[in-house]
């Protein structure tokens, strides 16, 4: 429910119900240069669209103003002056323009322009002056300058009827007046002081009906009828539904009419009531009578008439054993809500047919109220209709809170107070998202208020992203840690340099940026981890020198960390690496990356006993190990001679039994 204003240069301004400016957009350069000649706003399943006829006699379309995509329609050949009339059609999800130039009709779609002729068009019709498309885009009416009216389907495949009226001049307005699912179609035209209804139906408008208008009026086509607005009055012209017709037709003998009569007599305490009732009952039409009354009540606008019809229905109900009460209850509820919103102070004069359509799951009614900021009424309606809290009340409250935040009235109040006031009203209502409200507050530039509101948000998961957006990374981090869900904190490391003490930063960097990780450890003087870091990076070094360098760094760090063992072990590793390189060069066999044990073992296997002995001494290999190693290596090699020599050299520290088992 917004107001769209289209300016000559193609700028479209959007205002809300309170005439507060919301936003604007432009319809493109072409429109800007050639100016707007005529503009139409239309509704499709995609949303609200705008169609513009430019000064260059070309059309521009935007099918959805919320998701703006401009479309320039192809040129109409030979179009020199503006078309006499045009309309936007929506068929099978495609939006097209139908325009009339003199006696020709053109259909403009995305790519092409084609001439069309409506079937059964009278050849003497003359040129077209007006056209009207029905609310659901199914029917089309054309008015020609001979007073000829053609009515048919928009597909231009079928003619519904034609008609000649006495007035030649073009009507000020021409609109369709029909009900959904009704077979009776009629077109209403308005001239300055005259209203004319034209239709083909057998019962409704047939032929020509004229009404006199007292004032200048404007017609608004709607789903189930036509609203006639003038300076002093607001009338609704619609086809009378069957139920109402049956009941209120003069001398009607329909069951509903009889039931109404019976009830009236009953109130007068007259025995005629019984007679009427009997008459219905004899025909076994009582259930029908009741439902007729219920249905008709819905179409009435006067509460008194509604009441008398409902009273009749409830009266009739007493005489039926098992009449399902839902329809009656539902109607009473609906009417109460409808009457409440039709009240002149609220001013939403919906008809009954429009109500369920607008309402959907009983929500749009309240949400239109919310847009009008009629929060108390909306809440009361929700409570009356017993909508679940999450669907109804909490949504309204959330809207209210957002409005409250946006409205700068609270300026004299501190942020604290506003937040507190909101929390008092909202409490722990299920379905309320404080973070959404806070986000709104932040959008309005009230960061402090947003933070205060976030305090009420029970789910840390919702707090963190917004806090980060507001660049409160410290607070976000502490919230994330509080939640115990490090994945949230996973957001926080983004600005690692700004918050190096995040407990997750190291982990994150471990995978991401090893350099940052080093800086982090440096900042913390974590020498142990720095040592480990260097050892780690030594593995990725290809060249021996690089590896030794990295390991040397590690040794330094380990000493700083007072981890003598690690330092010593790393020094040994460096020593081993250098040795292995020598061995590799000397024997042209791969020795690198073997453990000390394997290195010595390999040396013995290859018969380099001297070198093995040297390593044994240099690395202070325990005797036990050396014996195991040497014996098994020799055995593997099958070098029994050497084994005997070895076994005699010293006393075995591992006993002789083992040797046998080898």
């Amino acid at each position, binding site marked *: 429910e917004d107001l769209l204003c289209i300016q000559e240069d193609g700028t479209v301004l959007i205002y809300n119900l309170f005439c507060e400016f919301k936003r604007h957009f432009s319809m493109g350069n072409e429109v800007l240069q050639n100016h707007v000649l005529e503009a139409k706003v239309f509704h499709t399943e995609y949303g609200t669209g705008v169609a513009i006829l430019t000064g260059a006699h070309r059309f521009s379309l935007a099918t959805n103003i919320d998701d703006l995509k401009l479309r320039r329609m192809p040129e109409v050949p030979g179009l020199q002056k503006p078309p006499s009339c045009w309309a936007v059609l929506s068929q099978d999800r495609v939006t097209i323009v139908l325009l009339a130039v003199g006696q020709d009709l053109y259909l403009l779609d995305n790519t092409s322009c084609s001439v069309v002729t409506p079937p059964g068009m009278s050849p003497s019709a003359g040129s077209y002056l007006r056209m009207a498309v029905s609310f659901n885009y199914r029917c089309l009416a054309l008015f020609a300058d001979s007073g000829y009216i053609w009515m048919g389907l928009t597909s231009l495949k079928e003619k519904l009827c034609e008609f000649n009226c006495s007035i030649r001049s073009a009507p000020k307005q021409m609109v369709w007046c029909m009900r959904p699912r009704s077979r009776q179609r009629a077109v209403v035209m308005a001239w300055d002081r005259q209203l004319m209804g034209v239709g083909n139906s057998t019962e409704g408008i047939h032929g020509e009906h004229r009404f006199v208008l007292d004032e200048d009026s404007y017609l608004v086509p709607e789903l189930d009828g036509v609203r006639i607005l003038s300076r002093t009055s607001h009338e609704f012209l619609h086809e009378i539904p069957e139920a109402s017709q049956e009941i209120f037709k003069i001398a009607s003998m329909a069951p509903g009419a009889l039931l109404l009569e019976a009830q009236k007599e009953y109130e007068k305490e007259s025995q005629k009531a019984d007679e009427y009732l009997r008459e219905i009952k004899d025909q076994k039409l009582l259930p029908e009578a009741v439902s007729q009354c219920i249905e008709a009540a819905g179409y009435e606008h006067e509460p008194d008439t509604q009441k008398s019809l409902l009273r009749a229905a409830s009266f009739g109900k007493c005489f039926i054993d098992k009449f399902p009460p839902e329809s009656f209850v539902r109607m009473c509820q609906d009417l109460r809500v409808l009457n409440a919103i039709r009240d002149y102070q609220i001013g939403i004069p919906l008809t009954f047919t429009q109500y369920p359509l607008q309402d959907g799951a009983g929500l749009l009614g309240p949400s239109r109220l919310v847009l009008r900021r009629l929060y108390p009424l909306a809440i009361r309606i929700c409570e009356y209709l017993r909508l679940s809290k999450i669907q109804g009340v909490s949504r309204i409250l959330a809207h209210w809170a957002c409005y409250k935040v946006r409205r700068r009235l609270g300026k004299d109040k501190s942020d604290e107070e506003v937040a507190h006031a909101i929390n008092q009203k909202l409490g722990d209502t299920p379905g309320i998202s404080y973070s959404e409200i806070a986000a709104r507050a932040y959008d309005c530039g009230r960061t402090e208020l947003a933070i205060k509101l976030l305090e009420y948000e029970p*789910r840390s998961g919702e707090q963190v992203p917004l806090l980060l957006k507001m660049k409160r990374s410290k607070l976000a981090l502490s919230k994330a840690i509080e939640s115990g869900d490090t994945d949230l904190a*996973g957001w926080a490391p983004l600005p690692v340099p700004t918050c190096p003490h995040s407990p997750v930063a190291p982990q994150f960097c471990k995978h991401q940026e090893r350099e940052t990780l080093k800086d982090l450890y440096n900042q913390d003087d974590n020498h142990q981890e720095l040592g480990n870091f260097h050892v780690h990076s030594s593995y990725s070094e290809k060249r021996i020198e690089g590896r030794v360098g990295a390991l040397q760094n590690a040794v330094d760090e380990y000493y700083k960390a007072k981890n003598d063992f690690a330092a010593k072990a790393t020094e040994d590793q460096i020593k081993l690496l250098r040795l292995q390189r020598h061995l590799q060069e000397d024997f042209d066999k791969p020795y690198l990356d073997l453990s000390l044990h394997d290195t010595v073992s390999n040396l013995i296997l290859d018969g380099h006993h001297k070198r093995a002995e040297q390593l044994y001494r240099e690395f202070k290999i325990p005797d036990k190990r050396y014996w195991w190693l040497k014996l098994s290596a020799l055995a593997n090699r099958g070098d029994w001679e050497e084994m005997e020599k070895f076994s005699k050299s010293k006393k075995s520290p591992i006993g002789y039994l083992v040797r046998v088992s080898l």
Partner: protein
Amino acid sequence: MAAAGSSDAPEPPDFGILKRLARDQLIYLLEQLPGKKDLFIEADLMSPLDRIASVSILKQHEVDKLYKVESRPVLNTSDQFCFLVRPRIKTMRYIADIVNADKMSGRSRKYKIIFSPQKFYACEMVLEEEGVFGDVTCDEWSFYLLPLDEDIISMELPEFFRDYFLEGDHRWINSISRALQLLNSLYGPFGKAYGIGRCAKMSYELWQDLEKESEGDSQGRKPEIGNVFLMDRDMDYVTTLCSQVVYEGLVDDTFRIKCGSVDFGPEVTSSDKSIKVLLNAQDKVFNQIRNEHFSSVFGFLSLKSRNLQAQYDRRRGMDIKQMKNFVSQELKGLKQEHRLLSLHIGACESIMKKKTKQDFQEMIKAEHSLLEGFDIRESTSFIEEHIDRQVSPIESLRLMCLLSITENGLIPKDYRSLKTQYLQSYGPEHLLTFHNLKRIGLLTEQSAGETLTAVESRVSKLVTDRAAGKITDAFNSLARKSNFRAISKKLGLIPQVDGEYDLKMPRDMAYVFSGAYIPLSCKIIEHVLERRSWSGLEEVVRLLNSNESVISGTASSTMWGKWAGMGGLRAGGIHSALPHPDSTAEDNPAWEAQRMVLAVFLGGCTFSEIAALRFLGKERGFKFIFLTTAITNSARMMEAMIEAKA
């Protein structure tokens, strides 16, 4: 059901629904990307996926080719790539590389990443950094729970152990809480919850928050599982470090059971190909021996084979009609059983061969003396020899850890020398491994803490228990100690038996370790379930250093009493008054649920523990359902600690 005695354990609920839920969601996700697509699957998701949806199901939903993540797709013509991955940064890099390579060569494809079980923000950040965030769509496959067997549910997150206990990464806690929430909504509401450990507590609290947020309509539904017991792996490392001797555990140690199935190689199948066998309760032979001590398995198997032979033999002397019946009805089952039997016999032989080669008996002896705490010197030199002879890097490491944890750390001299020996034997890169093990508390050095214990024990005699608890906490912050010996004494974990322990007719859970040791984790569970509270365990809880989980947590949920150490914990359930075993009818569903216990192991659980608790359940009329982050054993735990040379 009414006829069943109270000691009969109830039937476990049907966990098949978990599979169906996972499958349906996966199909839904695949259909979100209509048309033919290639699917890239993370290597460790392959086996779980196999249990959920077959290749033909994937093909039905227009999956064209299957790739393993990490392998380069060669000249791929498909227009759509779908990645089914764990939320890992490395994998994100891999995907980003593919996308960027496509961009360079001007190819345009659709990419969809499905994270299982959930997406981490860090992953999105990496995608963003690599500049491909806009090119991919992300989805979550909330596949938290894989039922491996009728009583085992695994989250298949082996990395949880390292991520949480070593790196202190709390991200998976969210997944655990969601898994608990799912189980609670399907089989709950759980009546009572117990737990010990920091992670258990955090998961529990987050889970409760989730429950509050969702306000599920679980009220009034008949619960199928009555109790939950959450336990952190670091409460009991000893049990994981022991060699397993029940059949299922041995199979796991020897052949590695992967996702409920095992590959028996040629040496078992006595043919030239390996056979993949699903190990669960459906396998009738396996089901009867899985929980048995290995020594009784052979006897059982030979008896079984004789029975089978007898059944085959029946067919002699049958007339044609009987024969027809036999062939159509029994033969298939017999053949199947026969096949399985020969496989398990093969497996047993293979295990025997391997174990005798490694001086298994001697190792078991050393382990037992470590557990009982005598002949420490001898065991130490056994370990030393083990290292010197390069028997196996994993085994050596395991024994060192076992020594350290049972002895409250190694004495400084041994600590240095064993480490040096180890580095010499298995390579210097294990320096980092030792650092990891120290951090996690598996391999530590005895420090001044030892003398403090003496002081402490004197102090505790003087002051009240509570104050002593505080003092211990202070000491513990200096040196994290396992206090295994004290706990073992307190709980009687080492059974005192006269003569031989009868492994065929075990009396207690110690049978899973040849009667030498009752698993600590299982003992705690037994104790708490028996008393329905932590009372009587105050001292043990203190020794386990888990008082801190009381202190650090503010019990936000009013529904719950106090956390571990003080009293029983009650989650909001439907029965405020627990039906007492002897006061209510046995067919009462609430009572039935009361005997169903969900044992949650955070950081993995071993088959020995599962066998022990199954045994306990049979004895006490409980039925245990196991939920674990992954099935583990000593080797897996050690491997998680080893720093890969990358």
